[in-house]
């Protein structure tokens, strides 16, 4: 597949929402297939049927939750980019925490705080791992060392 670059900011929201939905749909489908298979009564056909039912019933809901998370995250991320005029890991961490908090808004303040902390820590971990990988792989992309001979000798 070709190189996949992220869209510029306002369109990134739609893109992230779709990516999260696809991820939730496929990943949730696999997860629900296993869960439905295990929870079904014995007999291979019943198990497959249970698996199918679980996929049909649950995976769109998981996908929808993922999509809401992704869309909200991206919206806050873009808002922060607009107001802070820079893109750094703090944007992601702040928007992760804010997304967790906002999406738990109907469950009361303690639940909001818990979700916000979970969201922030999760995004901080993701960003940290990303920075770590960048640091580790930076050596491979280092330029060849500059020529040591005097440039005048080339003339």
């Amino acid at each position, binding site marked *: 597949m070709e190189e996949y670059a992220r869209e510029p900011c306002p369109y990134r929201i*739609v893109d992230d929402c779709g990516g999260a939905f696809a991820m939730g749909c496929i990943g949730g489908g696999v997860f629900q297939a296993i869960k439905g298979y295990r929870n079904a009564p014995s007999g291979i056909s019943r198990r497959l049927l249970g698996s199918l039912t679980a996929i049909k019933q649950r995976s769109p809901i998981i996908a929808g939750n993922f999509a809401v998370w992704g869309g909200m995250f991206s919206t806050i991320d873009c808002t922060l980019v607009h107001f802070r005029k820079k893109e750094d890991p703090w944007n992601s961490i702040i928007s992760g925490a804010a997304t967790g908090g906002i999406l738990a808004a109907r469950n009361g303040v303690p639940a909001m705080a818990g979700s916000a902390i979970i969201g922030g820590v999760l995004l901080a971990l993701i960003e940290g791992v990303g920075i770590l990988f960048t640091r580790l792989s930076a050596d491979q992309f280092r330029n060849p060392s500059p020529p040591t001979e005097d440039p005048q000798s080339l003339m």
Partner: protein
Amino acid sequence: MSADYLSQPLSFADAAPSSRNTQTVTPLSPYLNYDPRYLQAAQPEFIFPEGAAKQRGRFELAFSQIGSSVMIGAAIGGTAGFYNGVRATALAQQTGKLRRTQLLNHIMKQGSSTANTLGTLAVMYSGFGVLLQWVRGEEDEINTLLAGTATGMLYKSTVGLRRCAMGGGVGLGIATLYCLYTTATSGSKINFNKPYM
């Protein structure tokens, strides 16, 4: 020395400060004393090796298609849910805080279910589209038609053969309408080399 030149602008004036006194080296331009070995002029550099034939394929468009389907579904479902919620709460004579919560429940329920349905359809369509593009190795309107049909059939695949076929027919119909629309707006006959969608 190995690391700090990365953060500096490119200049070789003090690349080897110990070997020679570089104060006397004053080049005409910082761009002229560049080692020609680094300019690989031997082979041409194309972004895509085949030339300009490569276009943005389905995979690049898939996520935005899915995302816009989800968002449109959420908007439609939310509006319908608001309408239904207003009616239902008025019928049940709920007021104040109770009515507000019930309205929110209606909007969330209907909005998310519509969004999920449309998004799942989009995921199926994009998946089939990417798969067909990959298998057939080209991108044209046959892909659109096949992907639409397959999406309809897969979506209705668990409720019996007849309705599965009906779903496939509906998918084929929508895909055909879309193809006709795009060819009508592009002002040509059906163009089987048209990229994307």
